[in-house]
């Protein structure tokens, strides 16, 4: 690492010939996409449910329950999920990681979708009902299109949270299953080695692309009036 002689792509070659690592990358991506998708569905339904709650008190209770997983430290989330999965008999591995990623992404999706839902004028719904729309029609033709920017923002946030997470995954991943951040941690504990550097560069580039994608998607929808985000 410290004796620089010339540029080389050897470390990238080594990286791509390491099948174990490629499987881990694949795991990470699959977990991220699946958890983002499922948590987006649950989160959108949850946001609609929170909005339909009438009482102010119960709404506030729901909102604070919602934010518990956002404010609590990762270590506590990880430890409590470890207890939960062990008690419930879920084998530590792919499913426990997926479930916990879904669990901590749901509140973020709710927080991204709820503002859009709140700013939607109730007259829109009344108009739809007056024109004879069924509840299902109202949901798919009026509510969902209106909150789409929020849904996309929530999905991307869930995706980045899942890709980014180390602490919770570290607790609930058993032997045999590993995601990228857990793998980097165990490599880094052994000290500096150059294929981690190569890997980091690739992850950095992927992150930048993700951010650019997120930026353009929100920008595209901001023309149809997505305020609040600077």
């Amino acid at each position: 690492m410290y004796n620089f002689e010339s540029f080389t792509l050897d470390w990238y070659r080594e990286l791509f010939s390491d099948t174990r690592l490629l499987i881990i990358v694949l795991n990470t991506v699959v977990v991220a996409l699946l958890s983002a998708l499922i948590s987006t569905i649950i989160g959108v339904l949850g946001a609609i449910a929170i909005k339909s709650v009438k009482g102010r008190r119960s709404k506030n209770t729901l909102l604070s329950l919602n934010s518990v997983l956002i404010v609590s430290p990762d270590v506590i989330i990880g430890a409590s999920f470890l207890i939960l999965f062990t008690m419930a008999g879920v084998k530590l591995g792919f499913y426990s990681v997926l479930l916990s990623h879904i669990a901590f992404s749901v509140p973020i999706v709710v927080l991204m979708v709820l503002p859009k839902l709140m700013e939607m004028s109730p007259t829109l719904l009344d108009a739809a009902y007056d024109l004879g729309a069924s509840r299902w029609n109202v949901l798919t033709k009026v509510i969902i299109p209106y909150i789409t920017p929020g849904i996309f923002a929530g999905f991307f946030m869930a995706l980045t949270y899942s890709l980014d997470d180390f602490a919770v995954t570290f607790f609930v991943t058993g032997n045999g299953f590993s995601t990228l951040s857990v793998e980097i941690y165990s490599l880094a504990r052994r000290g500096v080695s150059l294929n981690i550097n190569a890997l980091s560069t690739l992850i950095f580039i992927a992150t930048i692309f993700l951010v650019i994608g997120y930026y353009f998607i929100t920008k595209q929808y901001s023309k149809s009036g997505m305020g609040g985000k600077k």
Partner: protein
Amino acid sequence: MKSKLSRNLYAIPYALWILIFVVAPIVLVLYYSFFDIEGNLSLTNYINFFTPVYLKMTLSSFWYAFLITAFTLLISYPTAFLLTKTKNKQLWLLLIIVPSWINLLLKAYAFLGIFGTYGTANSLLEVLGIGSKQILFTDFSFIFVSVYIFIPFMILPIFNALDEMSPTLLDAANDLGASAWTTFRRVIFPLTLDGVRSGCQVVFIPALSLFMLTRLISGNRVITLGTAIEQQFLVTQDWGMGSTIAVFLIIIMFVFVALTGSRKRGM
């Protein structure tokens, strides 16, 4: 009856989520904290927590978290202030936030290289004639890296608070003869206190519970509450004690939020 049931059908997944992943884990942590390592119901863990070993650890964890928060604030406030004065402030803000998109581990890993025995920092010290020093695995490196990681989270709320402030207030203060220092002390700082508060919350609580950085950067020298929990759960396998520390961490968190937050802002 049927319509009411089907009306609320869509809320079921979310309700289940709250029940399983929000309520149940907290209850389980609390439940486990009353079991000692042999699985007997007892208060041993709570008694153990108040022995000097754990109290000292809690205090040192507090001390480190306090230092990290203080240094972060010291750097972030002037930075946020300067940012609001620059021309392309959104661009500068973006540049400061970019590092927070990169995985925490990668940043920690980068510092392993920079602070290592033959790393950039030591080469610089050599050039300056100070000679190479042990930088990695010291308190300094731990606090430095933590501060570096938390800076964006502190700058953001302070920047927003400063940005929202109406410039006419400053003009008014000037007109009324306030010096720059008085303006800052009496006008700017009180108005941005909310931003400072939420910034401190976002930094202090994670700083108490850091565990990956302590392992990588400070080489087990620094033990925070987070490290202790991880140790109890994954190494010692004493879930009861781990849960007890977690319970105290949750309590500390609530107390801290109650102390610093007048009203909570959305994240």
